[in-house]
Structures are given as structure tokens and as C-alpha cells.
């Protein structure tokens, strides 16, 4: 079964807009939630991460919002730029940094 469900599968946003990607999980034992950014032909690169004792974390234009009671978390990209066009993955740590990933979201920022 898919332990982390990610949506949407693809997303098109205008330059300067806000990109929002959502993830939901079932296992309340997950204790670390990273987001990865992947460009074609490259490995995933860690973007930002959060632990469940925090409801929001912001790094530059990237923000994670975390709702522990709803078992949901989301990535917000403010002032989206064409260079942000990539595939984004949410993930959850099932222990010892064994990550379980969402299916991925292909983000396209139109200039």
C-alpha cells in the first residue's frame, strides 16, 4: 500500500505564483518529513524537512506546513520561478532514515 500519498501528479503555475503540493500519511510513527527536488537525469536533492513537533518551517521561498492531527503536510513555493520547474517528492522516515516516498509531482513554472 502507498504509505505516503502525494498530490497533484502534475502542476502548472505562472511565474511569480504560489506552488502548493500536498502529502498525506497514515503511520503516526513517522517522525521526520523531508521534501526532495529532482531535475531530469539527477538524483533527488534535499530541499527542506520538518519534524512533527513543529507546524511550519520556512527556508527562503520554501515553506512546509504540517498538520499532525490531519496527518497531512504540504510544500509551498512562493514567488515561483522557471528554475523551480522540477519533480518534487515528499517523504516520511519510518525509522533509521528509511524513507518512504510519495509518487512525485512534476512542477512546471510558465515564464
Amino acid at each position, binding site marked *: 500500500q502507498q504509505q*505516503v500519498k*502525494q498530490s497533484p501528479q502534475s502542476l502548472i503555475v505562472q511565474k511569480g505564483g504560489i506552488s502548493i503540493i500536498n502529502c498525506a500519511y497514515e503511520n503516526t510513527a513517522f517522525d*521526520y518529513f*523531508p521534501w*526532495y527536488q529532482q531535475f531530469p*537525469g*539527477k*538524483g*533527488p*536533492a*534535499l530541499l527542506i*524537512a520538518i519534524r512533527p513537533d513543529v507546524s511550519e518551517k520556512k527556508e527562503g521561498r520554501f515553506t512546509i506546513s504540517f498538520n499532525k492531527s490531519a496527518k497531512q503536510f504540504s510544500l509551498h513555493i512562493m514567488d515561483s520561478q522557471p528554475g523551480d520547474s522540477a519533480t518534487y*517528492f515528499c*517523504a516520511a*522516515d519510518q525509522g*533509521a*532514515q*528509511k*524513507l*518512504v*516516498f*510519495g*509518487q*512525485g509531482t512534476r512542477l512546471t513554472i510558465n515564464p
Partner: protein
Amino acid sequence: DAGITQSPRHKVTETGTPVTLRCHQTENHRYMYWYRQDPGHGLRLIHYSYGVKDTDKGEVSDGYSVSRSKTEDFLLTLESATSSQTSVYFCAITDPSSYEQYFGPGTRLTVT
């Protein structure tokens, strides 16, 4: 790519042949992982290692084996490759100071 190299970067092989992929790290970290990436599935954990000769199975381990005889090297072996193992394979390491996980550049494997 956080001091991680993978070899080969691309490989085409025939069904039934053995294949070994290599992951090499220069960070001297204990924790290493092998994932496969397929469209619609994200990345899925195949095997992981907590140190030399200390390995365990992930969620999609059938048909794969691993070995770790040195801290810096983690090998993934497909004993008898099948077409369902056509995928992109990523190695990862965890930085013990931050618990952040970093990925290598990947190996694209095609089984014909």
C-alpha cells in the same frame, strides 16, 4: 552529490544475466541505502546497511542482494535480471550529525 558516486551510470543487460551496481561514498558514513525509482511509484527502498556486514531488507528486496565489506562501498546485485528490474537505481547516505539523507546521481538499468 554529497561525495557519492555510482557505477556504472548506464547499463543495458539481457534477462537472466547477473548485474552488480556499485555505490561509493567519501563521507565515511555508516548508513547507506539502495532505492529504485519508477514512474508513479516515487522511490522505493530495496536494501539498507547500518555498517560493514550489517544489512537488511527494504520494501522491494525480492530479486536483489547487497554486500558491504568496506564502509565506503555498498554493492547491489541482481542475481538474474528480469525486465521488471528495469529502473533507475539510487544510492543514498545519511549524515549522522543532521540525519539528512543525500542521494547519488543514479544508475539507469535496462533489462532487455
